[in-house]
């Protein structure tokens, strides 16, 4: 399990919650000497207080160290936001933070 790959900023303003996240990942489309053709995040999940609000499916065409931002209605200061990802080699990471 990868560690400390996720940074999240979730900010509530005017009834909307804006979530911005940065993930440290190679998002590689290159072949390497091990014969692995690509190494990339396939799924990113976002939960608000334990309920899925947003999901992304990615390909190798998402840039290295991906940035993702989305917005949802509702959410209040102190609510939990969890971002997790799974890549094509089965590696995964997850981080929970609070809305500010």
């Amino acid at each position, binding site marked *: 399990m990868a560690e400390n790959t996720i940074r999240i900023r979730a900010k509530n303003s005017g009834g909307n919650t804006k979530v911005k996240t940065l993930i440290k990942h190679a998002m590689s489309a290159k072949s390497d000497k091990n014969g692995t053709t690509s190494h990339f995040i396939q799924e990113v999940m976002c939960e608000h207080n334990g309920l899925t609000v947003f999901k992304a499916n990615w390909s190798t065409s998402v840039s290295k160290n991906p*940035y993702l931002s*989305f917005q949802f209605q509702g959410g209040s200061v102190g609510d939990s936001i969890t971002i997790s990802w799974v890549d094509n080699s089965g590696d*995964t990471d997850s981080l929970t933070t609070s809305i500010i």
Partner: protein
Amino acid sequence: MEILRVGIKRRVILKGTIASGAIGLSLTSGLITPNMAFAASWPANVFNKTNLNDALSSLGVRELAITNDILIKAPDLAEHGAVVPITVETAIPAIEKISLLVDKNPNPLVSTFELTQKCRGYISTRIKMKESSNIIAVVQAGGKFYSNRKVVDVAIGGCDE
């Protein structure tokens, strides 16, 4: 030791999946390569299409309504195709899915975003582009498909990274 480590990792990922036993077994016996096995809901058959029309039809698009209600923010000129910032914003209600495609990339489908009812029609990310091309945003809402596109000139291609 390596096998043990992988085993634990796999268990964490598949926690809650009914088929975990079966998948785990096929992994061990080498029937499924790691590239296929994880993120079971990742739609490989949509992402592996090599031209725009195939990618669109595998997304389920039959008819595309071109609309200026979808705003695509991206640079007119991207100096390096490895990092092209893009924002898609729309007021179309009840969005189920937003897909991003780049016409001239080896695999046109870059990403799909599944939105729940609470989400606003807004996504922002950074993508790779092989060469100057259209960026196409497809918004699926209420069973219909809406689309808009924007031309981005790319100085140095960025799909090999």
